[in-house]
């Protein structure tokens, strides 16, 4: 298994400076990626009347867009590895913009499926992955904070896009609104322009590492960048191993042998079944128990507002020296906390009515924000910044299923039982069990990693395998390990 020297990128990430401009760019990109499909639902009623289709047919537009966004993950991570974040994001922005403008001239619902759904969705995926990846390149020490800030883009944009869309619709109808939205989305290109490729300083201790690294430049493989630095530092033979077939490089199935990655994947797949449905059904649930439209919409605003602040807040907390080494626990606790919120929701709604739902919206907003802020940070923590690109591509493709199936299955539960509470209980269980699973499994994972660390320190095994496994799996105290590794190589590597 190729090594991923997560802690040792071979250069010191800036952790600031232009990095914050990059975070702002990522904020915009991520904001559009997540908020755009959701905010389009405002137009559905009118488009449904215009094309004379049923609600489920029009809802497909949103579903296809989300599906394409997740499915495009792998493709965009390949492109990012090859060309870097900037061109991919700019291209993504152009794709979405042009497709929206073209859709404004559409004459059938199929046009919307293809243009807004497929092309728009892929364009958004070309925004999402590179943004996440580039944060890992620019930040090490302050990475959870940067992640939290960037992920805050989603609620902020949802908050602003919703009334903006309503305004556009009232003044220009759906066609004009699509055209103007296409222009607005092109601001992703501005975000892409901000994503300047990082200037790196070579590591002082190994000046000759550079020569080894450049041979792997051409590979454009998922490990290619890792080897650039990793190969030089660990051993001279590493780079040559990378030139495998394209299937190996493109898919990086070796990630499936990564213990932490598998734990993450299993936990997340189950979690995503119950992740989005409660948001989707919050307003209908409120209306169902007799709350009027405006107050129900206000619930969502409260939710988004709390979410907005919870994300950077969580990033800040996750960055502290107490939490960072054991960030996986923090993540699993947030997931479980989500589950608990959902389980309590029906009780709050029945006994306290609107006030109960407001309380639920606040706590759920907090929970949702916590999970979203940490979602990609823990993946980075597990697999390292170099393999993150491929990992996130794999993860989004696999998560495609639960994300898309979740709300319809939840809707089905609501239809069958004619009551929202069973759906909330089901979602609660769907979140609580992965939370507990992640907590327990990560306990074992940390134990194993500590064991390996101790073994390594006692010097019982050679440089190669143990170091590799620690480098690739250990999430704790990256700052420590950076300097530690350098010392170690001093002693043993030569």
């Amino acid at each position, binding site marked *: 298994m190729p090594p991923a020297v997560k802690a040792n990128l071979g250069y010191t990430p800036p952790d600031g400076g232009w990095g914050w401009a990059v975070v702002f760019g990522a904020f915009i990109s991520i904001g559009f990626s997540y908020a755009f499909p959701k905010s389009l639902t405002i137009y559905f009623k009118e488009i449904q009347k215009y094309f004379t289709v049923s609600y489920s047919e029009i809802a497909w537009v949103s579903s296809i867009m989300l599906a394409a966004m997740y499915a495009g993950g792998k493709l965009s991570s390949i492109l990012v590895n090859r060309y870097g974040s900037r061109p991919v994001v700019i291209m993504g922005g152009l794709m979405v913009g042009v497709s929206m403008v073209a859709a404004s001239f559409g004459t059938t619902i199929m046009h919307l499926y293809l243009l807004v759904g497929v092309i728009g969705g892929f364009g958004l995926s070309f925004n999402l992955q590179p943004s996440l*990846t580039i944060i890992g390149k620019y930040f090490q020490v302050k990475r959870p904070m940067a992640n939290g800030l960037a992920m805050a883009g989603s609620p902020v944009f949802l908050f602003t896009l919703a009334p903006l869309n309503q305004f556009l619709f009232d003044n220009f109808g759906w066609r004009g609104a699509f055209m103007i939205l296409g222009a607005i989305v092109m601001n992703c290109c501005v975000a892409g322009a901000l994503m300047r490729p990082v200037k790196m300083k070579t590591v002082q201790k190994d000046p000759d590492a550079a020569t080894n690294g450049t041979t792997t430049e051409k590979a454009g493989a998922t490990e290619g960048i890792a080897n650039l630095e990793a190969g030089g530092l660990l051993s001279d033979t590493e780079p040559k191993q990378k030139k495998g077939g394209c299937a190996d490089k493109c898919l990086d199935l070796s990630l499936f042998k990564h213990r932490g990655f598998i734990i993450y994947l299993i936990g997340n797949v189950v979690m995503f079944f119950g992740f989005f449905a409660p948001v989707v059904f919050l307003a209908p649930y409120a209306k169902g128990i007799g709350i009027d439209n405006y107050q129900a919409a206000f619930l969502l605003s409260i939710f988004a507002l709390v979410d907005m602040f919870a994300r950077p807040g969580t990033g800040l907390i996750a960055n502290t020296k107490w939490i960072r080494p054991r960030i996986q626990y923090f993540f699993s606790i947030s997931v479980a906390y989500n589950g608990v919120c959902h389980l309590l929701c029906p009780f709050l709604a029945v006994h306290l009515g609107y006030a109960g739902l407001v309380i639920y919206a606040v706590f759920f907003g907090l929970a949702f924000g916590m999970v979203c802020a940490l979602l990609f940070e823990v993946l980075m923590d597990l697999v390292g910044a170099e393999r993150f690109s491929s990992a996130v591509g794999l993860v989004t493709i696999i998560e495609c299923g639960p994300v898309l199936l979740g709300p319809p299955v939840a809707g089905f539960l609501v239809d069958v039982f004619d009551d929202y509470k069973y759906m909330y209980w089901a979602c609660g269980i769907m979140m609580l069990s992965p939370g507990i699973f992640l907590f327990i499994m990560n306990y074992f994972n940390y134990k194993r990693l500590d064991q390996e660390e101790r073994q390594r320190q006692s010097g019982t095994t050679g440089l190669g395998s143990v170091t590799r496994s620690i480098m690739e799996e250990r999430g704790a105290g990256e700052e420590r390990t950076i300097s530690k590794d350098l010392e170690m190589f001093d002693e043993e590597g030569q």
Partner: protein
Amino acid sequence: MFSPWISSLKLILIPLFWRGIYTTENPLLALNDPVTTVFRSAVLKGDNLVEKVEILKPINLELACTCDGNPNKLPNVTGFWRKDGIEIANSRLTVLLENEQYNLKKVFSIHGDSLGNYSCVFNGADKESKFDFYLTAPEMGNMKEKPIVAYVGDSVVMACKIKLPPKTWIWYKENGTEQELINSTTDPLRYKIFVDRNTTKLTVTNLTEVDSGVYICSAIYNIKTSVSHLEVRVISFMEPLKPFIAIVAEVIILVFLILLYERWGSQKSSSSPTGNMMHVDQMHKLTQDDNGIDESSTRKRKI
């Protein structure tokens, strides 16, 4: 105003025609025999002191109220009826306490002009309790106040929906103070009307600016007609084009500025080279891989 000792009121309806009444609480039972009278009662909780009854045809309707005996248990109270707040003449009765309850009922002849707010009032020991029945024709709710925006050359679909199917639907276009009827003979190429029990749709194709204005859909019931207004605004494609071009221009300018700043910044620091720093080329060059092995002190980094 509402005395606490009314804890339940009963509504009994006796339709003398086979169709005609819905209450907001219970859907109408299917009635087959036109001559049969149907008794239906609804027991209403004490807090619900208003009942909305939607009526489709002229009928004779009996409204009945029951209230539980008050703590004082007066042997009799005065009961009377009001319509729209005004007491109905000769409706005052003395109501006796039977089985701990006071009952009051009256038959009303309901037709188009006599719809309104009927109340039964119990007056005893200077305390008044009443219950309101709102008798109306079905109404279309939730119609948009904002105009529908459509484009020249495009088409627009207007829809009206109501809870209970009317006898028929009719569309009009408001022309100044008059209403112009739209039906299948009025320009069949452009106007299409679709009717499906309790919904109707009007599709106007090949729009021009003249088509802007207010359209009226009316649901015709035997007792009354319910109307709803829809406004359409027809605009040309030039209108959204202006903000579109403005925003695209803003995007291009910002991208240009950012890349310019970067190039200026890299030119500045390239005049003070450090052995270990590598300045990455502009965006288009990122797509080229560098095969050259020896840039020994520098490395190209692809993000």
